[in-house]
Every structure is written in structure tokens, then in C-alpha cells.
């Protein structure tokens, strides 16, 4: 069954889009990430114009993350205070990112900046997480007691910087300086790369701030909902590239996928969770990396600058 998309100006298969929404929603709910870095390339592969793909998938991220946030709220698996700081810093970071985006475009190297950032971020974050997971598995196999997540009184020095705040839900008593820095960076990278930044928030909260896994997912989703809502409205106003029909199809698939993902995520062991997320990030990073290194089958590409009517 085909349906015509009024803004993308092309027909798509309804079942295919629903399925894609469900699959990406599942991963999004499972790991507490937005999934934009998976959805955007899929939509572009289907032939949807890149601007429409980037703008429209943000609606799906809003929907599936809202589901996750509401679920986390009910289970009290959400740190409001930490979330609020991430959101506020994220907005400032986004403004800086938009400015840098325009500067890179003027310099004519935007494509390169984006691909290189993708590869670096994904492979670095992915391999760090994978290394950590393998070490954990190794400890467990050797029969030694698994290191406790955190001993009383033991913490990294940067958490002891001034302006300390207490985050009860996250079992965290730390300086806000590294947290604000993280939120600025996420907003910056998000605006530059067109992503929500969940895949940076999740590992950062897990490893740098040692926040419990279940709280990480809910808090990260809260940050994603807020940033992506702003992005969605900005895309609609500045580019008029949000396709409502495509958005609704992706949303319907996505919210149900996210529910199942979140449910499965709760039954997943924390080590396995981190291992799987590491593999996912590494795979995406390698895919972008290969695209950069391998000789392309078709070296030429067309981009539409403007439509004359």
C-alpha cells in the first residue's frame, strides 16, 4: 500500500515506514537514545530528500521519547534536577552549534565536518564502552567479585570541584561544572550533526557520573524530548521540511516499538545493556568510516540547491 507524502512529494510504502518506525523505536526505547542517527540514513536511502528526512524524524523522536519519559516518571526512574541542568545547558550549546554549522557551511566543508565528527564520536564512545564491558565480563569469568559500582567516598576528582550539588535520584553528589560542560557539548554536537545526542548522554552519565542505568535512560530521554521539540519547530519554521504524513506513520510505528524496547530494557542486565549499546555505536561508526575510506561505486552525486517555479 502506497501513500503520497505531501512535503517530500513522493509516494512511500505504508508498511515499510511503519516497520522502520517500530524497529528504530524499539532500539530507542531499549537504550534511551533518540535513534535519529539510525532513522535519517534509512529515510535518505528510501529517496526522501535529506532536509525532509532530518526534519521529520525529529517528530518521531519526540513521540517515542515522550512515551519513555512518561514510563520513567511512573517508575520514578528520572532525575528532574539532573535533567533540568542538561536541558538548560543543551539549549545554550545548540545555539553555539547552529552558529558553527553556518560557519562550516561558509567554509564549504560542512559534509566533511559532519562525517568526521560522526566517525570520531561513534567509534571513540563505542570502543571505550566496549573495552569497559569486556573488562567487566572478564572479571566475572575469572570468578573474582565484580567491582562494586561505587565505593563510599570513592569518586573521580572532577566530581569534587566547587559548586557541588546533590542529585538524590542519581545517587550523585557532584560539582555542576562537569555536568554543565557535558550539556553544552551535547547541545553543540546535536545542532551540528542533527542528532538528539542521547548516545553521548547515556555513556557519559553511566561512566563519568556513575548514575544507575535505569535513571540514565529516563533522564536522557527527558533531555531528548526537550531539545528535539525545539528542533522540530525550528525545522518547520525555517525549512518547511516537516512532512506530517511521514511523521505520523513513523510515530505510530515508533511509539509501539519504543514501548517494547523499554520493557525489554528493564529486564536486561546492566553489563549486557552497555555491551549491546557499545556494539551498536561501533557498528554505526564503522559504517560511516567505511563510507569515508572505501572507493565509492558512484563518485558523483546530485544535490538540489533550489527549485525554480
Amino acid at each position, binding site marked *: 500500500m502506497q501513500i503520497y507524502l505531501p*512535503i517530500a*512529494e513522493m509516494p512511500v510504502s505504508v508498511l515499510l515506514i511503519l516497520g522502520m518506525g517500530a524497529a528504530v523505536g524499539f532500539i530507542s526505547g531499549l537504550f534511551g537514545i533518540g535513534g535519529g542517527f539510525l532513522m535519517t540514513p534509512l529515510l535518505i536511502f528510501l529517496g526522501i530528500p535529506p532536509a525532509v528526512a532530518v526534519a521529520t524524524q525529529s517528530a518521531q523522536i519526540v513521540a517515542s521519547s515522550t512515551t519513555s519519559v512518561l514510563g520513567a516518571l511512573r517508575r520514578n526512574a528520572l532525575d528532574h534536577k539532573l535533567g533540568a541542568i542538561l536541558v538548560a545547558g543543551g539549549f545554550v550549546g545548540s545555539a553555539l552549534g547552529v552558529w558553527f554549522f553556518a560557519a562550516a557551511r561558509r567554509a564549504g566543508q560542512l559534509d566533511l565536518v559532519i562525517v568526521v565528527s560522526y566517525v570520531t564520536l561513534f567509534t571513540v564512545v563505542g570502543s571505550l564502552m566496549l573495552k569497559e564491558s569486556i573488562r567487566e565480563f572478564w572479571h566475572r569469568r575469572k570468578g573474582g567479585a565484580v567491582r562494586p559500582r561505587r565505593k563510599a567516598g570513592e569518586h573521580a576528582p572532577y566530581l569534587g570541584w566547587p559548586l557541588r550539588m546533590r542529585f538524590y535520584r542519581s545517587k550523585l553528589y557532584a560539582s555542576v561544572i562537569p555536568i554543565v560542560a557535558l550539556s553544552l557539548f551535547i547541545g553543540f554536537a546535536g545542532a551540528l550533526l542533527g542528532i538528539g545526542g542521547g548516545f553521548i548522554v547515556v555513556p557519559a552519565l553511566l561512566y563519568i557520573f556513575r548514575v544507575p542505568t535505569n535513571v540514565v535512560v529516563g533522564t536522557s530521554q527527558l533531555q531528548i524530548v526537550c531539545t528535539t521539540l525545539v528542533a522540530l519547530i525550528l525545522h518547520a519554521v525555517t525549512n518547511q521540511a516537516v512532512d506530517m504524513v511521514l511523521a505520523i506513520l513513523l510515530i505510530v510505528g515508533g511509539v509501539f516499538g519504543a514501548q517494547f524496547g523499554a520493557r525489554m530494557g528493564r529486564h536486561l542486565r546492566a553489563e549486557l545493556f552497555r555491551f549491546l549499546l557499545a556494539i551498536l555505536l561501533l557498528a554505526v561508526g564503522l559504517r560511516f568510516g567505511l563510507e569515508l575510506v572505501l572507493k565509492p561505486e558512484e563518485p558523483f552525486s546530485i544535490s538540489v540547491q533550489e*527549485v525554480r517555479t
Partner: protein
Amino acid sequence: MRAFGFLLILLGSLTSTMVEAETLITSLSNHRVLINSNYTGTQIAVFGAIERDAQTIARATGYDVVVTVRGPRQFLTVREKQRLGLVWINQDQQKFPSVPAYLSVMTSRPIAEITSDQLRSRQKIGLDAIVNAPDATLVRGGTDKPFREALLRLKAQEGLYLEDERGVTFLTPDIFRAGVPLPAIAPPGNYEVDVTLFADTVILARTHTDFELVKTGFEERVGVIAHDWSLTYGLATAAIALFFGWLANAIFRRD
């Protein structure tokens, strides 16, 4: 020498007034193609009749027809990835300031048999002649042939540029028909239809007409709202997203 040239021009104009004895009448099956929610492309039929007055000499070779359909104009950039150290990145590019988003050429015979290369490139008859026209690219000089070839190849892969040497069929010696396929991804807008009549490699007559591909009903309203009330549209999409998120949560609450 000059007198000889003048004579040639005179002779040429004489023959051209003679060949104008043929008139071409064309008509489209549809001047307004509507896009609704189950639109998956369509086909436009072009009908034509060749009228001759009593003085017209009989043509020994018969007639040939070329139907050219040009979609809305686009400003395109074609980029080429090249190796730089370890990585492949976009380097060279060529801009095409005004090329049709859709271009099809339907002919009654292989286009090389209908008329000469020179006439084709001068009159922009045929896919190659249009894409290789000197004014198609923005930056002159340098290597632009590979970019023109890439444009043609990539557009042809999408079904947006095509040439069909059996696209025009003669129903009688004076009446012909051409089917112009419009793929679903051909964008809405104005489509120009040029019909050129040939006999013995010479252009006898031309007609120009057009049709419009437009979104209707829901599709049109969504497009208008997204464009004219973009903030409302963005807020509405956000509200829909939040609503569905809440709805899914409410449905799955029983755990």
C-alpha cells in the same frame, strides 16, 4: 563569394516558406494532473495531426516526430568524490543553474536517424543535446563532460530523464500519439511539451503546450499550511507527536 552566400540564404528561405505548408496540431490528454494520496505516477498522452494544404509536395521519406517534455526547473550541483589521503570526499563540482527536474524525449525513430548532430545540438533536440548544451553549466572551462554524463546517468537511474525511440507511434501517416510516463517522484509544477515535426532531417513545424502537475485536497492543504503557517504547522506536528507518545504510554500502562 558573398553573392553566392546570399543566394544560398535566399534559397534556404524559399524552401522554408515551402515547408511551412505543413501545420501541426497537437493536444494533451490532460492539462492538469492531480496528485492525491494514492498517486503513484501517471502517463500523459500527446496526440498530434499533420495537416497539409493542396500545394504541399508529397514527402518521399515520411514524417518523424520528436516530443520533448521538460519538468520544473531546478538549480543542481553535481559533486565528485575524490581521494584525499585516506578518505574519499567531495571535491570537484559543477553547477547546473536551470535544468529540468524531469526530461523525456519521445521519438518515432532513433533520434540519430531523424536529423543531423548539428541541428540537434542547435535546436536542443534529444536528451544528449539538451544535457550537453553549452549554457547548461555555470562554470565554463575545465572538465565538465563527466559532470554532464553523471547528471544524465543519475537522473536516468531515477527514471526522471529518459529517451524512447519508440515513444511516438503513427496511427495513420498523418496522425500520431505519444505516451509520456511520469514517475511518482517527478515533482509538482509546470511541464512544457514541445512537439517537433521533421521530414528528411528538416524541421517542418513545432508546437508548444504545457500541463500542470498539482497536489489536490489534503495534500495541497498540508503543503499550503506548512508553507504559509509554518509555526502553527510545527506546533501542530509537535502536539501530534506528544499526543501519540502519551497515548502509547496510556495503552501500555497495565504493567
